């Protein structure tokens, strides 16, 4: 890794947002992990691999909605940007098979809709 200098920050444009791409994000802090987010993370990755779908599964910290952990944020083009909550293995599979693969939203597990 090369070292940064003051100059590295000179030409930095405002936020280098990477919002336009598809991704799945799992909250992997203590609260999430205690609720089973580790398993969910692995199930999501494996199912994507099995289905040969190329969507990155990212990790993040606690988004604050501890009552609904494990939380899985799904951003897929042409679909609402959704945070699913209380996700278990079963719901994780549905996220890939329905939401990602067939572009169908899943009932009962939506805990928040993010604005674009």
């Amino acid at each position, binding site marked *: 890794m090369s070292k940064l200098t003051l100059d590295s*920050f000179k030409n930095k444009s*405002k936020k280098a947002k990477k919002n336009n791409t598809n991704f799945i994000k799992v909250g992997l*802090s*203590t609260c999430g992990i205690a609720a089973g987010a580790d398993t969910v993370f692995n199930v999501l990755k494996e199912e994507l691999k099995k289905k040969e779908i190329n969507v990155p599964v990212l990790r993040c910290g606690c988004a604050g909605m501890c009552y609904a952990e494990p939380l899985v944020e799904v951003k897929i083009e042409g679909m609402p940007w959704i945070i699913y*909550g209380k996700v278990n293995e079963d719901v994780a599979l549905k996220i890939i098979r329905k939401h990602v693969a067939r572009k169908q939203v899943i*009932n009962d597990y*939506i*805990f928040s*809709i993010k604005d674009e």
Partner: protein
Amino acid sequence: MQNQKKIILVKDTNMDKETSSMIDKFLFGLRERGLSEDVKVIRAADLNIYNKGVVVKIWPENITYANVKKDDIDLIIHRTVENGKNIDELLVSETNKQLRIVLRNCGIIDPEKIDDYLDNEGYCALAKVLSEYSPDEVIEQMKISGLRGRGGGGFPTWMKWNFAKAQKEETKYIICNADEGDPGAYMDRSVLEGDPHSVIEGMIIAGYTVGAQKGYLYIRAEYPLAIKRITLAINQAREKGLLGDNILGTDFSFDLDVRLGAGAFVCGEETALIASIEGKRGCPSPRPPYPSVNGLWGKPTIINNVETLANIAPILHNGGDWFASIGTEKSKGTKVFALTGKVNNSSLIEVPMGTTLRDIVYNIGGGVLNNKKIKAVQTGGPSGGVIPENLLDTSIDYENLQRLGSIMGSGGMIVMDEDDCMVDIAKFYLQFCVDESCGKCAPCRIGGKQMLNILSNISEGKGDLEDISSLKRISQALQKASLCGLGQTAPNPVVSTLKHFEEEYIEHINEKICRAKKCSLLSIYEIIEEKCKRCSLCQRSCPVEAINGNREVGFTIDQEKCIKCGKCFEVCKFEAVSL
């Protein structure tokens, strides 16, 4: 694969009974108009709007309607779904009560990747400070910002930094206090796990400002993931030239190390914490001298809380006056709270100072569990107090909470309902402080224990009205004479419950009843004849043979003999033993 054209999300925010029939009505209406193919209807679990009847959200327009009645559905389909027009009477402006400064990256970036932090304006404040600001100019911005310590005391951060900066010593230290010991609090853990670089950036800026070369993060050993992520972050920052010699190519050098907490609550107190890092027993010592003058290994030391430090980069990036524009006159910026207890959404929240407790409980927390009546909100952990229901409209800032007999504290916020007994709550927190007292000073060691004895007596129905004045008297002694904050604030939960709920104490003492039915020794166990199936299980389980009768005539409990152990209550399969 066809994209979904439109989605209608439905949620009953009150009782969750209406949702299904509303959805049926939507489906029926859509089918009638031949829209079933293009419009999907989905049951949402939460749309982050509370106590507003049935909420309907329409995507992709993101129109949100609240208090929707069945009769509105045809109109919604016709006007909004078909013709794209709003129905003004139903619209809710989505006022998000939260404002994320400290938690700006939590739940957004990958805490194990420094590039994610850098892509979100990470270390921009540090670069700005190193290229544009003298240490005095940093302090000036901090002063304008009005930031006060988030570890509990609320001491102006710029002042602390200024004291340390003024010391003419070669060696100085920066310490991050991540010992987070308040029961129910996990704000600092979430920041360290979700955005470790924000704390590191704050520490480097602090180091530059006061002229320190070295910093320590004192993290409680019970936080293994936080320790792992902060250690990883420190290594990544070092590789990038953000820590170590000649940071970002300048002649400023600074490095960080992690120290694990020794597992005692009192080690979160700054002088005890310093002793603990030095390898000594974690006992507090009298102040002054303050750590900013004489701290770690006798050198000037700044000790700041995790949340305080996470505020530094945004302040210097956006300017002190930006920060000062948020909050109330004397309390600037935001506060992170761990909202727990009898609330629907146990969550980690960040709100501007000045938000009311009622807003927090009802509009963010989603109201009280099982629709029970709220009794009070506890803030400030074992050093804090309770704020009763009639004062929930108080806006939160350091002064207001103190005036009500509580404190801001580090951010624990526990919602209590009718089932919580105020004597029991006071006893719980005092027990915590008695257990955690280091024993060095007499007021805390002896006074705390005596107060606890009195509280135990009251909760067991052995109290006396004079006990109340004894409690008040010992409280004063602890507040005035204890060596450190632990003893000085340990009586707060007792004083504040006495202030707002003295009648509950008197009930325990005079009438020997606990209205919340928490103090089990005050409860009277009785057998409800109508429910009793005469199985005799209670009689056989009673350890003191206090249950008279037989399977022919039924059973009764002899109140003289009963020791209120609750065994009969536990074993009865027919809920025939009442409390």
